[in-house]
């Protein structure tokens, strides 16, 4: 089959205030190809897409469309759309209050004598939906349709606008298996029509189910482009996670004995616990144990710990602390029972930007104490100073608003906040993300020290080495459920990657 290249991106570079978000990245899309774009956090996937769709201007590189010699400059999302590049985002960008037909044709409704011709619009919509085998009435209100259907309507809109390149940004996150299959059917139909699809996703199984090629990015650089058939799962996972420079020596010596906890009552025991965002899971964590949660981004690790902590309301299942059943449906409950949670999204769920470093540090402890027992000034100052010192937080002072600190130091402030509450169980969701090597090492040391003193820790990280150095027990997750547990001698990078990758030889 003759392959025609419809999109060629070469040497794409994008800088954000001196930080290289993309460096010399190439990407090629062929006609009628479903091409997966994969990478962990900070890989540059979304930046690449935003450059392609005109949201960001690029700092270097060229984009060519349709096999033409002349490079193009895409200055806005509207221009991208006009050039035949359409995007369907995870948050459906349609209007729920309008009908299906209207969403398909908004701003380009067919008119007769200057007035919108509803009959024609509904007819054309019906035909379009039928041609893509989407079974929904054009007059139905979009908000009444399921997310899966809404997504397909968004795709239908793109198709009707003659797109040649269709970007699907994590379309399957909220879909169940049947809906995913339906989506794939639609994608295959588009493939036959010659549309090139860029499929951004975390779900390994899906990549192997429907994609022809895979491009892997890591830390803003291109790792490689591979035909799916020639890339076994294990290799893919290895390429995505790569190898990080790190300071092994100091850490190795600290971690000697892996405590065995057979026969002990676990500190925390969850059975069949689930929420809106995660399938039922069961796990046990012992006192003084560091339990790692690994898996690719989107595998559900954050959702799992949020459910334990009560940040997401649990829908079913039971939770026991020290053998006694408890009900935790709000963070304060969890805090009072000795839990602490460092959220993944520092900016959204972590820092209070305009409050001072001191206030950010003491706020969780204060919330535990309640509104009528305010901490004395001196106590607050001492606590803040203690942790600024302990964690080496670089700040001009404790009264400085936390927004003027660098990302890494902001992270330390949030860690200090939770340590101050003297928890029995500390949940750390990507605590070292965006932090320099030196600080990463400090935090890893700290985790071990805390576990030594009897604190139970749940540690989520995308970097396997980090977890290998600190965890005595690892839970592997994939596609929103636990797929394996490793301990003792099984705790090797190799074994872990195998479990993450899953199914042996099958590739698609």
């Amino acid at each position: 089959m003759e392959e025609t290249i419809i999109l060629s991106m070469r040497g794409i570079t994008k800088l954000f205030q001196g930080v290289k978000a993309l460096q010399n990245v190439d990407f090629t899309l062929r006609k009628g190809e479903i091409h997966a774009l994969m990478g962990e956090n900070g890989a540059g996937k979304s930046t690449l897409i935003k450059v392609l769709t005109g949201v960001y201007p690029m700092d270097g590189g060229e984009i060519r469309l349709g096999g033409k010699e002349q490079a193009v400059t895409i200055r806005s999302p509207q221009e991208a759309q006009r050039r035949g590049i359409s995007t369907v985002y995870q948050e459906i960008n349609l209007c729920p209050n309008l009908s299906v037909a209207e969403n398909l044709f908004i701003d380009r409704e067919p008119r007769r004598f200057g007035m919108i011709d509803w009959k024609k619009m509904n007819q054309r919509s019906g035909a379009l939906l039928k041609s893509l085998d989407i079974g929904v009435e054009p007059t139905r209100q979009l908000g009444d349709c399921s997310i899966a259907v809404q997504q397909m309507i968004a795709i239908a809109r793109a198709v009707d606008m003659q797109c040649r390149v269709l970007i699907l940004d994590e379309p399957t996150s909220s879909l169940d298996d049947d809906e995913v299959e339906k989506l794939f059917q639609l994608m295959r139909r588009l493939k036959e029509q010659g549309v090139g699809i860029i499929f951004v996703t975390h779900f390994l199984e899906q990549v192997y189910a429907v994609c022809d090629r895979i491009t892997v990015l890591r830390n803003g650089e291109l790792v490689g482009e591979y035909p799916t058939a020639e890339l076994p799962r294990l290799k893919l996972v290895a390429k995505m996670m790569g190898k990080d420079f790190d300071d092994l020596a100091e850490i190795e010596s600290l971690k000697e004995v892996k405590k065995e906890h057979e026969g002990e009552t676990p500190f925390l025991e969850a059975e069949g616990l689930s929420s809106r965002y995660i399938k039922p899971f069961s796990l046990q964590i012992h006192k003084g144990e560091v339990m790692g949660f690994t898996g690719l981004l989107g595998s559900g690790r954050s959702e799992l710990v949020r459910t334990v902590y009560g940040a997401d309301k649990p829908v079913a299942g039971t939770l026991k602390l020290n053998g006694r059943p408890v009900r935790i449906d709000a963070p304060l409950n969890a805090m009072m029972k000795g839990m602490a949670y460092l959220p993944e999204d520092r900016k959204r769920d972590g820092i209070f930007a305009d409050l001072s470093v001191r206030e950010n540090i003491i706020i969780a402890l204060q919330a535990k104490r309640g509104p009528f027992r305010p901490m004395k000034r001196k106590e607050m100052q001492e606590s803040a100073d203690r942790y600024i010192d302990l964690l080496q937080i670089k700040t001009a002072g404790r009264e400085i608003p936390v927004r003027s600190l660098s990302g890494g130091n902001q992270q330390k402030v949030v860690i200090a906040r939770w340590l101050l509450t003297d928890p029995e169980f500390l949940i750390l969701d990507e605590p070292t993300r965006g932090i320099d090597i030196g600080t990463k090492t400090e935090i890893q040391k700290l985790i071990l020290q805390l576990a030594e003193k009897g604190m139970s820790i749940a540690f989520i990280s995308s970097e396997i080495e980090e977890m290998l150095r600190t965890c005595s027990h690892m839970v592997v997750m994939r596609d929103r459920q636990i797929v394996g547990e490793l301990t003792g001698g099984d705790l090797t990078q190799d074994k872990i990657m195998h479990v993450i990758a899953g199914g042996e030889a099958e590739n698609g």
Partner: protein
Amino acid sequence: MKKKKQLSDTSFLLMVTVGLFILMYAAGMIVFADKGFAKPQMFLNLFISNAGLIVISCGLTLVMITGGIDISVGSVTGLVAMASAYQMEVNGSGAYTALALSLLIGLAFGVVQGYLIAYLDIQPFIITLAGLFFGRGMTAVISKEMISVKNETFLAWAKYKIYLPVGTTNKRGVFQPAYIYPTVIVALLVLIAVAVMLKYTRFGRRLYALGGSQQSALMMGLNVRRTKFYAYTLNGFLVGLGGFLFFLNSCAGFVEQAKGLEMDAISASVIGGTLLSGGVGNPVGTLFGVLIKGAISSLITTQGTLSSWWVRIALSSLLCFFIVLQSVIASRKKKSM
């Protein structure tokens, strides 16, 4: 393929509104039959007294569909009346000039407020609250005393009766036809124009899109800022026009005129099914909202003993009821998703 008719929330809300009006009016007709409530003129008076409000409420519905709000409409109406009265009585201009002036004032408010809201992203409530105070103050700046209109053309417009084939026969057997004023015709024409615009023009649909989800509208390539700006500008024009119709009723300009009119307009829209969160609204529903307000007013006036403040209270309670109802429906929808 079977066509399942779903009772969408908007139809549900509209049904509640229309039903409420019919209920109220029928009750009035029964209870106050002896006081003339059942006469056709009574029904037509609803339109006569509220012609201006109908037009203003249409404008407000437009703005609320985009998810915004305008609480300056009452004070702009007062300003329009005062400015027109002043222009005619003190400066000696004609009625047509006064009309043009009214439209200009309305447009000016619309343009300034629209710019600040659409292009500087400032909350509509605060801007239009400032507009409310600006308008009230300016009215007093023009004149602190009441100005009654003596301009003949104007008064001719105000008093011109259009007789209808329906009416009542009084005790002496003389047929007294019911009548309306030209303001009613203008109001109904505006209503129809707005309804058509909302349903059959791209601009109208854009208003709904932007109110439904501003983010989505942006991603779909709609020029959100410009659309919002036009919405407020058009609203301003309608306030100017509606204000003039209102003025034709009062035939005078005075400070404190039309105080609280914004409340009536917002209540009429909300009761008529316009969602405060935006994206949903229908001028026909708004019309019924206005009629309900008129009915409450008539009922209380006919009853005679209750203070007129009850009208405000009843209307606010209804508004509260509908706001809570909307919020309950919305949260139920969120839970089921």
